[in-house]
């Protein structure tokens, strides 16, 4: 029976690194109040820009780093003092892979499997992740996507109840991406707690049951994608894109509440709360300029808008 207790509970997590330099003994605070709760049968996403503290949060949860303050409970235990039995219930895929370059992929997977008393069948797992296509070459010859798939297999081979995936889509080609994303959904359906980090809004939007936005070492917002992108004050349209001739300048007084940018020559993006009368004003302006856009599209508030509203900057 899957338990209803959270698989991972983090409360007010604080982590300092340092000393910063040899002469300067000051510590640098990298995490300053991360709160997080991850449930079984759900994909929990830590979303944030590079350097926001996502990986350090995962490392504290995995027991690779000792917290300087706050509470971390992984399956009810302190992960820094994890017993082998606790580690056997948790699978980890590190951001840099943790793969020895001179070893062959299947030899590594077999070795990792040998640390568990009842691992998944290595051949079937390798086939499922397409590792058998490159099982005989050494790891240093693998592409980024192939390494990510191998690291994922190493995280799953012990039949974990909780898996940590640090930037699982980094370096993935489209084929690997489909394999990995399908597998993540399958793990969720099987009742695992999947905890992953990403700086890609699209990944978060596609995979997450629950999102924590991490910014400056803190969790600054949380909710389902629908909750985070819900918009009480407008009809929910937050973006208008149109393509036409390059070099047009929208008069600033025309739609002052919208952010305007020409992302590529001839491709325009307006962001903000859009109403029908805004669209009418825009159409009048096009007519006055004598242009007709080739495409026009509206989009609801996305995680990107949420991130912009919170941090005042783009995630990239």
């Amino acid at each position: 029976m899957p338990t209803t207790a959270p698989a991972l509970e983090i409360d007010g997590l604080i982590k300092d690194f340092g000393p910063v330099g040899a002469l300067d003994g000051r510590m640098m605070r990298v995490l300053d109040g991360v709160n997080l709760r991850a449930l079984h049968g759900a994909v929990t996403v830590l979303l944030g820009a590079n350097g926001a503290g996502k990986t350090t949060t995962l490392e504290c949860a995995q027991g690779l780093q000792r917290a300087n303050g706050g509470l971390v409970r992984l399956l009810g235990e302190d992960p820094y003092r994890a017993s082998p039995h606790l580690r056997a219930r948790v699978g980890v895929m590190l951001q840099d892979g943790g793969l020895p370059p001179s070893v062959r992929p299947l030899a590594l997977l077999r070795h990792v499997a040998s640390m568990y008393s009842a691992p998944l069948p290595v051949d079937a797992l390798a086939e499922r992740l397409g590792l058998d296509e490159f099982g005989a070459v050494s790891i240093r010859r693998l592409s980024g996507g192939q390494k990510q798939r191998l690291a994922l297999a190493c995280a799953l081979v012990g039949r974990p109840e909780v898996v940590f995936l640090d930037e699982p889509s980094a370096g993935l080609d489209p084929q690997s991406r489909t394999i990995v994303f399908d597998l993540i959904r399958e793990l969720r359906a099987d009742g695992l707690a999947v905890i992953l980090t990403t700086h890609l809004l699209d990944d978060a939007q596609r995979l997450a049951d629950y999102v924590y936005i991490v910014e400056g070492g803190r969790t600054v917002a949380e909710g389902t994608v629908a909750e985070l992108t819900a918009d009480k004050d407008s009809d929910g349209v937050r973006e208008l894109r149109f393509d036409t001739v390059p070099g047009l300048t929208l008069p600033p007084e025309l739609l002052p509440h919208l952010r305007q940018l020409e992302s590529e020559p001839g491709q325009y993006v307006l962001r903000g709360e859009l109403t029908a009368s805004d669209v009418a004003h825009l159409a009048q302006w096009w007519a006055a300029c004598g242009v007709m856009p080739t495409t026009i599209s509206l989009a609801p508030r996305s995680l990107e808008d949420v991130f912009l509203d919170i941090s005042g900057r783009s995630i990239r």
Partner: protein
Amino acid sequence: MRATSGTQGAAVTSPSRATSGSAAGLPARILRQGAYESLAMLRNGEQLVLAIVLPLLALAALVITPLLDAHGPSRIDIAAPGVLALCTMSTAFTGQGIATGFDRRYGVLRFLSTTPLGRSGLILGKAVAVVAVLAVQLVVIGGAAVLLGWSPRPEGILPAALLLLVGSAAFTALGLLVAGTLRPEATLAVTNLVWILLAAAGGILIPASGLPTAVEPLISVLPSAALGDGLRSALLDGVLDPIACLVLLAWASLASLAAIRWFKWS
């Protein structure tokens, strides 16, 4: 059997609660890590040169040249214990230091410490690997020495085995200390340089008593001289040198404490 691949997806990942996430037993984990690491060392070309080829060359050189003639009647009897000490330094210090330094760089140490193996299992696995590779070296190098006419004192075998174990512990701890505190390129340079310096003038191949009297007291407290001289006392005279044993124990303890204090896993 690959025919069922299309329908196996769910079965592959589904962690049936009855069997989910259980660790293999502690001895099994440590022995498997030890076997994995010793095979990795024996398959690696540079490591093999360090572990087997260079000690064999040293053995041949000491038997052919008159370097050891001042220390006793039989060149091979004096040379062989020193070369076994050199083997220990090759595998435990330089070999394990370089392997660990690069594993640390690639995140292998961090990843394995999240599996049931854990940090302590990883270190114990390395100790098993050192002993296993050393056993291979003893067979190969010891066998070559016997072919060259080496006849160690039988009553010295047990003291020699004890010294080899304590010496392995001391050199492994020193190798891990270097690997855990320096970049892997620096570890490579330092462990190779120290190996050459100690092999040449560390009392390991040539007895410390043969060195200039001004440096002899300094050299004889090095782990290299303690292991070399200790093995020579055991295998030439059949006695356990207590001073050598204490010096090696001291190095093993101090280096282990320092490694525990300063080793960085990432």
